[in-house]
């Protein structure tokens, strides 16, 4: 589904990603872990099409297409979804209207009919339950005055509505208490299918207690330095990142 080869990315002349390789297949859950400043969020941003990054070399192939040739809305319509680390507040635009526009634009591009008001509402109600989102929030301005937990839940709610093929969760656990993490993780797990893929970007292992990854990759200083199964995450939780650093230096 997603194949990243030798990806080098810089921002304002500083190289952040220094040759990333990653293969992700449908139905898999990948976790990308790493200390602060290792380049995790940069990778998420580049995948979702943020424009302020310079891609110096490398290829990102997504479902047979060159992802770098696509603008953010084209990526979204092709099934790429980024759950933002810091969801943006948009005063004056309600979540309902925003999602209706987004969903219908996507449907139009797939050659499907627009959803009528009743079907849309039914769909929203169903998906809201999934992340236990307070129904009063969706008629309010998008993310405006939402708590940290509400914002993150709203991200997963949007994911549920838009049904992406490739979901990238960028530090979705940051700022959440354990109950909120469970709710968010539960939502993500319910959306999991053999046809879609989740990339979970996180600093801590605790989210991975609830979203069980098939693969764990450790990103450090712009490179993947170690990959393994879910047990790698436990080891990181126990020992921190230092042992990998040492191992890496020795190697």
């Amino acid at each position, binding site marked *: 589904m997603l194949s990243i080869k030798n990806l080098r990315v810089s921002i304002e002349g500083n190289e952040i990603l220094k040759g990333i390789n990653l293969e992700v297949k449908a139905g898999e859950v990948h976790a990308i872990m790493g200390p602060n400043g290792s380049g995790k969020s940069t990778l998420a941003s580049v995948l979702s*099409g943020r424009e302020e990054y310079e891609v110096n070399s490398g290829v990102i192939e997504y479902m047979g297409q060159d992802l770098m040739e696509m603008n953010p*809305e084209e*990526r*979204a319509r092709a099934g790429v979804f980024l759950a933002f680390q810091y969801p943006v507040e*948009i005063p004056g635009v309600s979540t309902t209207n925003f999602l209706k*526009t987004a969903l219908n634009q996507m449907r139009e591009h797939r050659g499907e009919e627009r959803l009528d008001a009743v079907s849309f509402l039914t769909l929203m109600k169903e998906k809201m339950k999934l992340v236990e989102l307070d129904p009063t929030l969706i008629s309010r301005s998008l993310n405006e005055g939402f708590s940290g937990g509400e914002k993150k839940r709203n991200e997963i709610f949007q994911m549920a509505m838009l049904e992406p093929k490739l979901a990238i969760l960028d530090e979705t656990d940051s700022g959440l208490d354990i109950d909120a993490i469970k709710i968010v993780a539960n939502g993500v797990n319910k959306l999991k299918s053999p046809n879609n893929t989740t990339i979970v970007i996180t600093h801590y292992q605790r989210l991975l207690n609830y979203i069980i990854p098939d693969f764990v990759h450790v990103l450090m200083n712009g490179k993947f330095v170690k990959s393994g199964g879910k047990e790698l995450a436990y080891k990181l939780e126990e020992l921190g990142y230092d042992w990998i650093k040492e191992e890496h230096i020795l190697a």
Partner: protein
Amino acid sequence: MANKLNEIIASQFQLFENRLNGEKQLPVHKLRKDAFEALQYNGLPDNKNEEYKFTRLTTLLERSFNLSMQNATQSLTKKQIDSELIKDIDGSFLVFINGEYSKDISTIAEEHQNISIQNLSDAIKNDSECFEHYFNKTKSYENDGFLSWNTAFTETGVKISVESNKTYEKPIVLIFITDAAEQQFMGNPRILIQIGENSEITFLENFKTIGDNPSFNNLALEIISEKASRVKYIKVQDDGGNTVHMSNSMVYQPDASNISIFTFTFSGRMVRNNLNIVVDGEGCEANMYGLYWINGTTHVDNHTVVDHRKPNSISNELYKGIMNDESRGVFNGKIYVRQLAQKTNAFQSNNNILLSNDATINAKPQLEIWADDVKCSHGCTTGQLDDEQVFYLRSRGIDKDRAIGILLQAFANDIFDKTPVKELRGYLEEIVMDRLN
């Protein structure tokens, strides 16, 4: 140059007086002459005038109009006029052609039958005592040259009187059709509105020019309300690209009166709105809402003054602007709180979005407070659209233009949402959708 203009206006005034014959004996003519003399003395404001330094209206008039040309008699057909009217509003429609009230084309709603609506020239002749009582009573202490010009040439327009203790649900729509089909047009229309005690009513004003020759409307609007009256007045300015619009709107507020003025500006070559509200009573509320959403080379200048003269009143002002291409916005908002006006609450806010590198805004909030027990605030922001917000919407599959449109509409909705005539919403939305595509 100003002297030359003065000479032309003087000879026009001579012609105007000759035409008036016996009407020169009416008391209103003394006011005309005073205004004419003030104008001769002060001249029209040039760019050395602080209030007009960003809006060189006088220069534009000198360059683009033949000031000594007389207006042609209007030649529009009913069909042409009909196509310019704002429709789908449940209310009365007063149609003016070149400033002259046209009863034939106008329709008065059942509800408004007891409202006195008079052609201004008739009111001057037939109702001179009443007219004199209300006319030109709100003149701004700033002595605007264009207002003097209008007053000196007062003839066309309308006088509307609303009795006391009446609440009207439906709006009165005033549509001014300007005929610039064959040649340029210059006019000085005047709207005089008198609202009786404890009455409530809504007005909607719209100017439309037919034809591509330059047109200049130098409007003066006076709203004289009595105690506990509640008035809403909406200006929708979406006239053609070769039109110049000057408006002096003057509102006088006695005790417990409530006024809301809405000013929407979308197009025109140059639009200048002076809005002066004198809060001369206690327990009053004055609301001023403005939205200028412009593109091309349109120039829009909103100058507002609220003068709090008595205690315990509220004024609330919110103007928002979106400027694209090479358009230019000017906002100047003054709040005076006089020493007597204790316990005044006065709020002002002006927010602007520039969509292109060549668009400009000059914003100047001014507070002058002489009372010590008041709550006043003002804030002014200018910026571009937030890239992060645009990206967020795009990352959910919404294309870039649509994302920008959603954000601009959200910005403007603060003002749209307050608009009292709900059918107007559709008309405004159409303009906005047009603008966004």
